[in-house]
Structures are given as structure tokens and as C-alpha cells.
């Protein structure tokens, strides 16, 4: 798979996040500080600007640059989290062929970065609640013989389910945790953007 495919993914994701910016901010208004949509939009517009300016020789360089751009442009919680995700995702793919297996390992590395930074556990009502079932579904699909696209589709579906299951949870991490019991009944913005990320990957990669 070519660098081009990954670039297309990031462009598609940027468009998706731009179209969903108001929605993500709306979700963040209910249990946060009303900026998740503009944070993601700002970050991925910057990524697109980098793609327009630079050509990359390898997938890992492309993804690491995307990660660094997110770290430098987003701020808030989502900047370091998604930034670290892409940094480690890219690093794990360095020198490797892009296959369902290597991408699976790289996704795990990326999510490991999110955990290292954010120390979230399952059920804390964060983006990890979308990532965790996504990783499992991805592995199961690959074990069952899926190709990259099939595995990504499975991951995206599992993420969407995990996202929906954040609704009843009481948040224990991030800003929503300040609301205590009042955080229940709302969908986590970060789990929502994670689902958009995986849906976009399923559309454009593989």
C-alpha cells in the first residue's frame, strides 16, 4: 500500500471532522468545554496543509509528521492523545510492509501511546472506550481471515458500539469527570471522533 492511500485517509478524515465539528463541540458542551470539534478541525486542517506542502517517501514519515502536527496545533487533551497515537502508529510501521497484521500491531502501539499519556481504563468514558473494542474486533477479524479493509470495517463497527456504550457511563477521566453522576446520559466526544477516524480508515485504506 502506498503513501498515497494514507494521505487520502488523512484528507478524508480531515473533511469528516470538519463536517462534524459542530456536532463534536455540541457533545463536548454537554459534559466538557465546547471545543472538541474546533480542536480536531484545527488539527486536521493543519495536517492537510502539511500534506499539501510536503511529499513523503514513507508511510511512517507521513504518520509521524501528522502526529507531530497534531501535538503542535491542537492542545487540550485530544492534541497529545491523538498526536501520540499517530506518532507511535507511524513509528511501528517504519520499515514494515503494510498488511492487515502490521497495521494491527501499529494500531495497538498507537493506542498504547494514548494509554501511556492518558492512563484511562475501560469504562472511564473516554476515547479508549471506542479504541479497546475496536482493537479486539480488528484482531478477531484478521484471525478469521479478513484483509485490511475487512479488519478496519470490523474495528469501526466495534468502535461505534463502544462509543454508544459510553452514554450511560459516569466519567472518571477528562473534563467530564468533574460532572460526576451528571456525566451519565451523554456520549463521549473523544469516543465519537475515534469512531469517525476508524470509519474513515475503513473507507480509504486497504
Amino acid at each position: 500500500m502506498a503513501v498515497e492511500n494514507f494521505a487520502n485517509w488523512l484528507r478524508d478524515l480531515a473533511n469528516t471532522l470538519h463536517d462534524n465539528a459542530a456536532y463534536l463541540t455540541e457533545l463536548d458542551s454537554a459534559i466538557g468545554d465546547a471545543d472538541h470539534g474546533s480542536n480536531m478541525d484545527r488539527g486536521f486542517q493543519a495536517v492537510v496543509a502539511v500534506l499539501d506542502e510536503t511529499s513523503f517517501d514513507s508511510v511512517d514519515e507521513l504518520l509521524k509528521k501528522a502526529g507531530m502536527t497534531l501535538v503542535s496545533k491542537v492542545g487540550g487533551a485530544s492534541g497529545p492523545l491523538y498526536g501520540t497515537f499517530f506518532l507511535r502508529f507511524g513509528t511501528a510501521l517504519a520499515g514494515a510492509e503494510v498488511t492487515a497484521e502490521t497495521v494491527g500491531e501499529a494500531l495497538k502501539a498507537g493506542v498504547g501511546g494514548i494509554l501511556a499519556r492518558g492512563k484511562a481504563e475501560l469504562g472511564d468514558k473516554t476515547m479508549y472506550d471506542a479504541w479497546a473494542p475496536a482493537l479486539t474486533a480488528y484482531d478477531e477479524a484478521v484471525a478469521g481471515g479478513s484483509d485490511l479493509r475487512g479488519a478496519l470495517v470490523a474495528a469501526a463497527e466495534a468502535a461505534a458500539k463502544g462509543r454508544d456504550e459510553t452514554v450511560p457511563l459516569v466519567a472518571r477521566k477528562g473534563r467530564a469527570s468533574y460532572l460526576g453522576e451528571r456525566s451519565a446520559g451523554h456520549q463521549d466526544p473523544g469516543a465519537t471522533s475515534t469512531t469517525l477516524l476508524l470509519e474513515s480508515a475503513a473507507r480509504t485504506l486497504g
Partner: protein
Amino acid sequence: MGGMKKLINDPADVVSEALRGLALAHPDHVRVDHENRIVYRKDAPRSGKVGLISGGGSGHEPMHGGFVGPGMLDAACAGEVFTSPVPDQMMAATKEVDAGAGVLHIVKNYTGDVMNFEMAAELAAAEAGTEVLSVVTDDDVAVQDSLYTAGRRGVGVTVLLEKIVGAAAEQGRSLQEVADLAKKVNGNGRSMGMALTSCTVPAAGKPTFELAENEMEVGIGIHGEPGRQRLPLAPAKDVAALLVDPVLQDLPYSQGDSVIAFVNGMGGTPLIELYLMYNEVRQLLDAAGITVARSLVGNYITSLEMAGCSVTLLKVDDDLVRLWDAPVNTPGLRWGA
């Protein structure tokens, strides 16, 4: 702009345009790196002095940019509205104010702020070898503290800490001493806030939450996030009790303790109401046998145009009071200079 009443141009330019205004209004106090959105003390770096850096999302003015100057911060990094700044900013600021004595990062306890400052400290140590220590403020008693959660928010005590620690750094105390002092201040301080209205994040264009005409939010933070409890509007006397009681119970402060009492406006509350609230707070402190050594009343750590207030109590000893009284010369706090 539909529903948003603000003196702004494009919502995307609010932070950079406000920084331009700050720079133009205070040429004697600060210089601003507009590219990186860093407000520097005009004469930074100060040789031999520990560098003090803070920062966070914008929308809390005068904090932090208004607290840059002799006796307080050396640099403040401004994020987007309610979004923590990025590591690049703190890294640039750290390198710039490092005068050989090391740099203290003053960070309010929000996941984003903590992570972005952490990344900056790692990078600054790796790249430039700068010794960086951090203090994280977490004084908001509205939030249940626990090892398993994000913990308490950093709010009002941050202002008092920046002043006190700023004076200590000015005296030439070492990085470790300054960091220990900062932790002591944070440990001695507690806050609680409430809102009469929501605020509107410029990029969002509508209020973060809706409050009916006869409601208030109690236990809010400083990012327009909803609070812990929605209650019917109440007289100032009752509001004061809702704020002071949990603060007093938490530390706990005990009879005979001496405090700095800080009644802070959230941005849209005028001084006449803050002084009225301060009167109520004082009655409660008198009744609890707490002595007020010093006080601060005004809009210092705000949430855009939100109406409401917070109460911060900081237990002080003679050293803290002396440091509080030491000269400070910033756009937002100034005395003795």
C-alpha cells in the same frame, strides 16, 4: 454571529487579537511572541532567577498573560479559548526564560494542560538540558478527589500561587525551594465556584449550557463546563454559604487560622456584586473564627463573560504573607512598584 454577543471579529482570531491588544496596552510590562502566543516579562531572562512559566487555555483573563512581570511570571503561554497550549509553546518559553537556575512550570490540573506541559518538559530537558520542575494546582473542592479520576481542577489558588511563588523567585530562592513552596501553597488552598449564566466559546457560537432565569450552577470550573448541581437562584448570603462551607470543611481550616480570602468574579459579574459577596464571605469566616490576613476581590481568573463567582481560601503563615506583600508589577496585579 447568531446568539453570540461579543466584541470580536472572526472567532478564530480572538486570542491573537487580544494578545496584540495586551502587548500594545502594556509595553512597559511585557513583550509578546505573537507567532508562538507567549507573553514574556519584558526583561526576561533574569540572570540567576528561577524562571516561572504558566499557561493554559485563553478566556481566563487577566490570568495568565496579565500576571507576567516583576514579582510574578516570566512567561505565559496562551492556548485557544479553553484549550491548553501546545508543547511547542511551553518548550519555546522554557528555553527563553531559562537563566541557568531552572524553570518551574505552573500547571492547572486538567488532563490537557498536564499532558501538554509534560511533553514540553520532557522535550526541553532532552533538547536544551533545562532543569524543569512542575507544580500542578488542584484546589477545586467541587470535584471529588480520587486516585482513579482526573482529580480536582486547578482554579483560584493558581492566581495566589503565581503571586507568592513569583515573589520567592524574585528573592533568588532555588528551583527546588520555589517548587516546594508552590506545592505548599497549593496544599493550603481550596476553592469553590458558581455561575449565574453560562459563557459562549467564540468558536462554538452558543452558550455551553443553558440556565433558566431562576437557576444557578454550583460547583462550576472555569471553562464554562456545567457544575455539579443546579439549584434555584438564592440570595447572596446563601450563595456565600454554598461556597464557603465546603471549602472550610475540606482542608479543614481550624479556628484561629489565618487566610488570604479571594472572591473572584467569573468575568461578567461587576465589582459591586463581588464586594457584596465579600461582605457575606467575611461574616461566615468571622463566625468560623478564621482570621483574614489579606484579601483579593475582583475578576482575576475568569470564564469569558460568565456571570458568577468563586471563593478561594489560602491558609497562610508569616512567610506566605510577606511574599504576598512583596512588590508585584504586572498588568493584572500591581503593588509596591
